[in-house]
Protein backbone atom coordinates (compact mmCIF):
# COMPACT_ATOMS: atom_id res chain seq x y z
CA UNK A 1 0.00 0.00 0.00
CA UNK A 2 1.25 3.41 -0.81
CA UNK A 3 -0.93 5.39 1.53
CA UNK A 4 0.97 4.69 4.69
CA UNK A 5 2.14 6.79 7.57
CA UNK A 6 5.92 6.88 7.48
CA UNK A 7 7.35 5.58 10.77
CA UNK A 8 8.98 8.44 12.64
CA UNK A 9 12.46 6.95 12.55
CA UNK A 10 12.31 6.39 8.80
CA UNK A 11 11.34 9.98 7.94
CA UNK A 12 14.28 12.28 7.33
CA UNK A 13 12.07 15.33 7.90
CA UNK A 14 11.44 14.30 11.47
CA UNK A 15 15.18 14.42 12.23
CA UNK A 16 15.30 18.19 11.81
CA UNK A 17 12.12 19.19 13.67
CA UNK A 18 13.85 19.37 17.05
CA UNK A 19 16.39 21.79 15.65
CA UNK A 20 13.73 23.93 13.95
CA UNK A 21 12.08 24.43 17.32
CA UNK A 22 15.38 24.85 19.12
CA UNK A 23 15.06 28.62 19.43
CA UNK A 24 11.53 28.49 20.81
CA UNK A 25 11.25 28.90 24.57
CA UNK A 26 7.64 27.86 25.08
CA UNK A 27 5.18 26.03 22.86
CA UNK A 28 1.51 26.59 23.53
CA UNK A 29 -0.93 24.57 21.40
CA UNK A 30 -4.46 25.93 21.68
CA UNK A 31 -6.71 22.91 21.73
CA UNK A 32 -10.27 21.72 22.05
CA UNK A 33 -11.88 18.67 20.50
CA UNK A 34 -15.05 20.75 20.21
CA UNK A 35 -15.27 23.04 17.22
CA UNK A 36 -16.34 26.65 17.39
CA UNK A 37 -15.31 27.24 20.99
CA UNK A 38 -12.82 29.90 19.94
CA UNK A 39 -9.49 28.13 19.39
CA UNK A 40 -8.65 30.25 16.37
CA UNK A 41 -9.67 33.57 17.89
CA UNK A 42 -7.88 32.75 21.14
CA UNK A 43 -4.65 31.72 19.43
CA UNK A 44 -4.65 34.73 17.11
CA UNK A 45 -5.48 37.20 19.88
CA UNK A 46 -3.09 35.63 22.35
CA UNK A 47 -0.31 35.88 19.78
CA UNK A 48 -1.06 39.57 19.18
CA UNK A 49 -1.43 40.26 22.90
CA UNK A 50 1.86 38.59 23.84
CA UNK A 51 3.58 40.50 21.06
CA UNK A 52 2.11 43.76 22.39
CA UNK A 53 3.51 42.79 25.78
CA UNK A 54 6.97 42.79 24.20
CA UNK A 55 7.47 39.08 23.65
CA UNK A 56 8.77 37.45 20.47
CA UNK A 57 5.87 35.40 19.21
CA UNK A 58 5.18 32.86 16.46
CA UNK A 59 1.80 31.53 15.39
CA UNK A 60 1.31 28.31 13.44
CA UNK A 61 -2.08 27.36 12.01
CA UNK A 62 -2.21 23.56 12.09
CA UNK A 63 -5.88 23.31 11.14
CA UNK A 64 -4.66 21.84 7.86
CA UNK A 65 -7.96 21.19 6.06
CA UNK A 66 -9.74 24.26 7.40
CA UNK A 67 -7.18 26.96 8.10
CA UNK A 68 -8.74 30.20 9.25
CA UNK A 69 -6.22 32.11 11.36
CA UNK A 70 -5.27 34.08 8.24
CA UNK A 71 -8.89 35.14 7.80
CA UNK A 72 -9.03 36.45 11.36
CA UNK A 73 -5.71 38.25 10.79
CA UNK A 74 -6.84 39.67 7.46
CA UNK A 75 -3.92 38.19 5.49
CA UNK A 76 -4.46 38.41 1.76
CA UNK A 77 -2.39 35.34 0.73
CA UNK A 78 -1.03 37.19 -2.28
CA UNK A 79 2.66 36.67 -1.78
CA UNK A 80 4.54 33.56 -0.86
CA UNK A 81 6.68 33.64 2.28
CA UNK A 82 10.32 34.52 1.72
CA UNK A 83 12.71 31.67 1.18
CA UNK A 84 16.06 31.77 2.86
CA UNK A 85 17.53 28.42 3.67
CA UNK A 86 13.92 27.47 4.33
CA UNK A 87 10.63 29.30 4.71
CA UNK A 88 10.54 32.46 6.83
CA UNK A 89 7.07 32.96 8.33
CA UNK A 90 5.80 36.38 7.26
CA UNK A 91 5.25 38.91 10.00
CA UNK A 92 1.82 40.24 10.86
CA UNK A 93 1.21 42.54 13.81
CA UNK A 94 4.66 41.65 15.15
CA UNK A 95 3.92 37.93 14.99
CA UNK A 96 5.72 35.39 12.79
CA UNK A 97 2.81 33.61 11.16
CA UNK A 98 2.86 30.31 9.29
CA UNK A 99 -0.11 28.59 7.63
CA UNK A 100 -0.67 26.05 4.89
CA UNK A 101 -3.09 28.57 3.39
CA UNK A 102 -0.10 30.34 1.77
CA UNK A 103 -0.02 27.32 -0.54
CA UNK A 104 -3.64 26.17 -0.69
CA UNK A 105 -5.01 29.72 -1.13
CA UNK A 106 -8.51 29.19 0.25
CA UNK A 107 -9.28 26.41 -2.18
CA UNK A 108 -10.99 23.33 -0.78
CA UNK A 109 -8.23 20.99 0.34
CA UNK A 110 -9.69 17.65 1.33
CA UNK A 111 -6.94 15.51 2.77
CA UNK A 112 -6.99 12.03 4.23
CA UNK A 113 -5.32 11.63 7.62
CA UNK A 114 -1.96 10.40 6.36
CA UNK A 115 -1.84 13.35 3.96
CA UNK A 116 -2.46 15.76 6.83
CA UNK A 117 0.34 14.07 8.76
CA UNK A 118 2.61 14.39 5.74
CA UNK A 119 1.81 18.10 5.35
CA UNK A 120 2.47 18.73 9.04
CA UNK A 121 5.88 17.06 8.86
CA UNK A 122 6.78 19.00 5.74
CA UNK A 123 5.79 22.34 7.26
CA UNK A 124 7.67 21.65 10.48
CA UNK A 125 10.79 20.63 8.54
CA UNK A 126 10.97 23.70 6.30
CA UNK A 127 9.78 26.52 8.56
CA UNK A 128 12.59 28.59 10.03
CA UNK A 129 11.34 30.30 13.17
CA UNK A 130 13.37 33.06 14.69
CA UNK A 131 14.21 33.06 18.37
CA UNK A 132 10.78 33.01 19.98
CA UNK A 133 9.51 33.41 23.51
CA UNK A 134 6.22 31.79 22.54
CA UNK A 135 5.01 29.65 19.68
CA UNK A 136 1.23 29.43 19.63
CA UNK A 137 -0.40 26.67 17.63
CA UNK A 138 -3.96 26.82 16.38
CA UNK A 139 -5.37 23.29 16.10
CA UNK A 140 -8.50 21.76 14.59
CA UNK A 141 -11.36 20.15 16.50
CA UNK A 142 -11.67 16.37 16.76
CA UNK A 143 -9.01 13.99 17.99
CA UNK A 144 -7.13 12.87 14.96
CA UNK A 145 -3.96 13.48 12.99
CA UNK A 146 -3.15 17.12 13.71
CA UNK A 147 -3.78 16.67 17.40
CA UNK A 148 -1.70 13.51 17.64
CA UNK A 149 1.04 15.17 15.64
CA UNK A 150 1.09 18.15 17.99
CA UNK A 151 1.64 15.76 20.89
CA UNK A 152 4.30 13.88 18.90
CA UNK A 153 6.37 16.70 17.50
CA UNK A 154 6.15 19.58 19.98
CA UNK A 155 8.01 18.90 23.17
CA UNK A 156 7.50 20.02 25.75
CA UNK A 157 4.13 21.44 24.75
CA UNK A 158 1.94 23.24 27.26
CA UNK A 159 -1.58 22.96 25.88
CA UNK A 160 -4.11 25.67 26.50
CA UNK A 161 -7.53 24.06 26.33
CA UNK A 162 -10.48 26.20 25.30
CA UNK A 163 -13.92 25.35 26.66
CA UNK A 164 -17.36 26.89 26.79
CA UNK A 165 -20.13 25.99 29.18
CA UNK A 166 -22.14 24.12 26.53
CA UNK A 167 -22.69 20.52 27.65
CA UNK A 168 -21.38 19.26 24.30
CA UNK A 169 -18.16 21.25 24.71
CA UNK A 170 -17.75 20.09 28.29
CA UNK A 171 -18.01 16.44 27.26
CA UNK A 172 -15.48 16.90 24.44
CA UNK A 173 -13.05 18.78 26.62
CA UNK A 174 -13.32 16.15 29.31
CA UNK A 175 -12.19 13.49 26.84
CA UNK A 176 -9.37 15.75 25.63
CA UNK A 177 -8.09 16.51 29.13
CA UNK A 178 -8.03 12.81 29.89
CA UNK A 179 -5.95 12.16 26.77
CA UNK A 180 -3.58 15.07 27.24
CA UNK A 181 -2.91 14.32 30.88
CA UNK A 182 -1.73 10.86 29.90
CA UNK A 183 1.09 12.38 27.90
CA UNK A 184 1.90 15.88 29.08
CA UNK A 185 1.21 18.74 31.44
CA UNK A 186 -1.78 20.85 30.54
CA UNK A 187 -1.07 24.55 31.03
CA UNK A 188 -4.71 25.24 31.78
CA UNK A 189 -8.22 25.86 30.55
CA UNK A 190 -9.53 29.10 29.08
CA UNK A 191 -13.27 29.64 29.36
CA UNK A 192 -14.70 31.36 26.31
CA UNK A 193 -18.06 33.07 25.77
CA UNK A 194 -18.36 33.03 29.54
CA UNK A 195 -21.67 34.19 30.94
CA UNK A 196 -20.76 34.20 34.62
CA UNK A 197 -23.93 32.27 35.41
CA UNK A 198 -22.45 28.82 34.77
CA UNK A 199 -19.65 27.19 36.73
CA UNK A 200 -19.39 24.15 34.44
CA UNK A 201 -15.91 25.02 33.17
CA UNK A 202 -14.53 25.80 36.63
CA UNK A 203 -16.01 22.57 37.96
CA UNK A 204 -14.37 20.69 35.09
CA UNK A 205 -10.99 22.18 36.02
CA UNK A 206 -11.44 21.16 39.63
CA UNK A 207 -12.51 17.64 38.69
CA UNK A 208 -9.48 17.18 36.44
CA UNK A 209 -6.98 19.14 38.54
CA UNK A 210 -6.03 21.61 35.84
CA UNK A 211 -5.67 25.36 36.19
CA UNK A 212 -8.51 27.65 35.24
CA UNK A 213 -6.67 30.41 33.37
CA UNK A 214 -9.50 32.89 33.10
CA UNK A 215 -12.60 33.79 31.18
CA UNK A 216 -13.28 35.58 27.92
CA UNK A 217 -16.71 37.15 27.89
CA UNK A 218 -19.17 36.94 25.03
CA UNK A 219 -18.30 39.77 22.65
CA UNK A 220 -21.15 40.51 20.24
CA UNK A 221 -18.84 42.78 18.19
CA UNK A 222 -16.01 40.34 17.59
CA UNK A 223 -17.16 38.97 14.23
CA UNK A 224 -17.38 42.43 12.73
CA UNK A 225 -13.81 43.13 13.83
CA UNK A 226 -12.16 40.09 12.32
CA UNK A 227 -9.81 40.73 9.42
CA UNK A 228 -8.38 43.90 10.94
CA UNK A 229 -5.63 43.97 13.55
CA UNK A 230 -6.82 47.30 14.93
CA UNK A 231 -10.35 45.92 15.04
CA UNK A 232 -9.34 42.87 17.01
CA UNK A 233 -7.19 44.90 19.38
CA UNK A 234 -10.05 47.28 20.10
CA UNK A 235 -12.39 44.45 21.14
CA UNK A 236 -13.47 43.39 24.59
CA UNK A 237 -12.42 39.88 23.48
CA UNK A 238 -8.84 41.14 23.14
CA UNK A 239 -8.95 42.90 26.49
CA UNK A 240 -9.98 39.63 28.15
CA UNK A 241 -7.32 37.68 26.26
CA UNK A 242 -4.64 40.17 27.29
CA UNK A 243 -5.49 39.52 30.93
CA UNK A 244 -4.86 35.82 30.30
CA UNK A 245 -1.67 36.55 28.32
CA UNK A 246 -0.16 38.32 31.34
CA UNK A 247 -0.48 35.11 33.32
CA UNK A 248 1.41 32.87 30.87
Amino acid at each position, binding site marked *: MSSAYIPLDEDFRVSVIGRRLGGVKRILPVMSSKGGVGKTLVSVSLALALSDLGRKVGLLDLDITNPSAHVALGMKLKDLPEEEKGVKPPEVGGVEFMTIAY*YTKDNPTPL*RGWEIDNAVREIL*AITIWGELDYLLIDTPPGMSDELLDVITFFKPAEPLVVATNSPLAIKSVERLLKLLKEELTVKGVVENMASGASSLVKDLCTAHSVSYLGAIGFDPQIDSKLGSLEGIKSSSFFRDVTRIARKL
Partner: protein
Amino acid sequence: MHEWALAEAIVEYVKDAVGGHRKIKRLVVALGELQSIDEEILRFSITEILKSEGMSIDDLQLIEEEAVLRCRRCGHEWSLKEVSLDEEIRELIHFVPEAVHSYLKCPKCGSRDFEVVKGRGVKIVEVVAE
Protein backbone atom coordinates in the same frame (compact mmCIF):
# COMPACT_ATOMS: atom_id res chain seq x y z
CA MET B 1 16.05 27.94 -1.91
CA HIS B 2 13.97 26.06 0.63
CA GLU B 3 15.87 23.05 -0.69
CA TRP B 4 18.50 24.04 1.85
CA ALA B 5 16.09 23.25 4.68
CA LEU B 6 15.38 19.82 3.23
CA ALA B 7 19.10 19.22 2.79
CA GLU B 8 19.63 20.01 6.47
CA ALA B 9 17.00 17.41 7.34
CA ILE B 10 18.63 14.88 5.02
CA VAL B 11 22.05 15.43 6.58
CA GLU B 12 20.59 15.21 10.08
CA TYR B 13 19.04 11.87 9.15
CA VAL B 14 22.19 10.59 7.48
CA LYS B 15 24.31 11.49 10.51
CA ASP B 16 22.04 9.30 12.64
CA ALA B 17 21.98 6.53 10.08
CA VAL B 18 25.76 6.19 9.82
CA GLY B 19 26.48 6.49 13.53
CA GLY B 20 29.83 8.13 14.10
CA HIS B 21 31.14 7.68 10.54
CA ARG B 22 32.51 10.78 8.86
CA LYS B 23 32.66 9.40 5.35
CA ILE B 24 29.55 8.60 3.36
CA LYS B 25 30.16 6.15 0.59
CA ARG B 26 26.82 6.45 -1.11
CA LEU B 27 23.63 8.42 -0.56
CA VAL B 28 20.68 7.85 -2.85
CA VAL B 29 17.80 10.31 -2.66
CA ALA B 30 14.65 10.02 -4.74
CA LEU B 31 13.09 13.27 -5.91
CA GLY B 32 9.37 12.91 -6.48
CA GLU B 33 8.23 14.74 -9.58
CA LEU B 34 5.30 16.41 -7.79
CA GLN B 35 7.57 18.52 -5.59
CA SER B 36 9.73 19.89 -8.45
CA ILE B 37 12.88 19.97 -6.33
CA ASP B 38 15.78 21.82 -7.91
CA GLU B 39 18.30 19.02 -8.22
CA GLU B 40 21.35 21.24 -8.49
CA ILE B 41 20.47 23.34 -5.49
CA LEU B 42 19.74 20.26 -3.42
CA ARG B 43 23.02 18.64 -4.46
CA PHE B 44 24.94 21.80 -3.63
CA SER B 45 23.17 22.15 -0.27
CA ILE B 46 23.73 18.57 0.84
CA THR B 47 27.40 18.75 -0.11
CA GLU B 48 27.96 22.07 1.63
CA ILE B 49 26.19 21.02 4.83
CA LEU B 50 28.05 17.73 4.99
CA LYS B 51 31.29 19.66 4.56
CA SER B 52 30.39 22.07 7.34
CA GLU B 53 29.78 19.05 9.56
CA GLY B 54 33.26 17.75 8.75
CA MET B 55 31.86 14.95 6.63
CA SER B 56 32.47 13.89 3.07
CA ILE B 57 30.56 12.01 0.44
CA ASP B 58 31.75 9.87 -2.47
CA ASP B 59 28.61 9.28 -4.42
CA LEU B 60 25.49 11.42 -4.14
CA GLN B 61 22.76 10.09 -6.40
CA LEU B 62 19.62 12.11 -6.94
CA ILE B 63 17.12 10.11 -8.91
CA GLU B 64 13.89 11.38 -10.34
CA GLU B 65 10.70 9.55 -9.52
CA GLU B 66 7.75 10.07 -11.78
CA ALA B 67 4.53 11.03 -10.01
CA VAL B 68 1.65 8.56 -10.11
CA LEU B 69 -1.72 9.57 -8.76
CA ARG B 70 -4.66 7.28 -8.13
CA CYS B 71 -8.27 8.19 -7.62
CA ARG B 72 -9.69 6.65 -4.51
CA ARG B 73 -13.18 7.00 -5.86
CA CYS B 74 -12.92 5.49 -9.34
CA GLY B 75 -9.52 3.78 -9.29
CA HIS B 76 -8.12 5.74 -12.23
CA GLU B 77 -4.34 6.13 -12.20
CA TRP B 78 -2.70 9.03 -13.91
CA SER B 79 0.52 10.98 -14.27
CA LEU B 80 1.17 14.71 -14.30
CA LYS B 81 1.47 14.59 -18.08
CA GLU B 82 -2.25 13.95 -18.27
CA VAL B 83 -3.16 17.17 -16.50
CA SER B 84 -2.09 20.76 -16.69
CA LEU B 85 -0.44 22.47 -13.78
CA ASP B 86 0.89 25.91 -14.52
CA GLU B 87 4.18 27.19 -13.16
CA GLU B 88 2.63 29.22 -10.38
CA ILE B 89 0.75 26.26 -8.98
CA ARG B 90 3.76 23.98 -9.27
CA GLU B 91 5.55 26.51 -7.09
CA LEU B 92 2.89 26.20 -4.37
CA ILE B 93 3.00 22.41 -4.50
CA HIS B 94 6.79 22.63 -4.34
CA PHE B 95 6.53 23.76 -0.70
CA VAL B 96 3.79 21.44 0.53
CA PRO B 97 3.00 18.69 -1.99
CA GLU B 98 -0.37 17.98 -0.35
CA ALA B 99 -1.50 21.33 -1.76
CA VAL B 100 -2.01 19.35 -4.97
CA HIS B 101 -5.48 18.56 -3.64
CA SER B 102 -6.32 22.24 -3.89
CA TYR B 103 -5.57 22.34 -7.59
CA LEU B 104 -6.11 18.93 -9.18
CA LYS B 105 -9.03 16.60 -9.60
CA CYS B 106 -9.20 13.09 -11.01
CA PRO B 107 -9.21 13.56 -14.81
CA LYS B 108 -11.68 10.71 -15.13
CA CYS B 109 -14.34 11.31 -12.45
CA GLY B 110 -13.53 14.77 -11.10
CA SER B 111 -12.95 13.73 -7.50
CA ARG B 112 -10.36 15.34 -5.23
CA ASP B 113 -10.25 12.15 -3.18
CA PHE B 114 -7.13 10.86 -4.90
CA GLU B 115 -3.76 9.88 -3.56
CA VAL B 116 -0.19 10.35 -4.64
CA VAL B 117 0.95 6.78 -5.03
CA LYS B 118 4.49 7.59 -6.08
CA GLY B 119 6.65 10.60 -6.67
CA ARG B 120 5.33 12.92 -3.95
CA GLY B 121 8.59 14.40 -2.76
CA VAL B 122 12.00 13.78 -1.30
CA LYS B 123 12.76 10.30 0.01
CA ILE B 124 15.97 8.73 1.18
CA VAL B 125 16.53 5.47 -0.65
CA GLU B 126 19.94 4.35 0.56
CA VAL B 127 22.72 5.49 2.87
CA VAL B 128 26.01 3.61 2.90
CA ALA B 129 28.82 4.59 5.24
CA GLU B 130 32.43 3.80 4.47
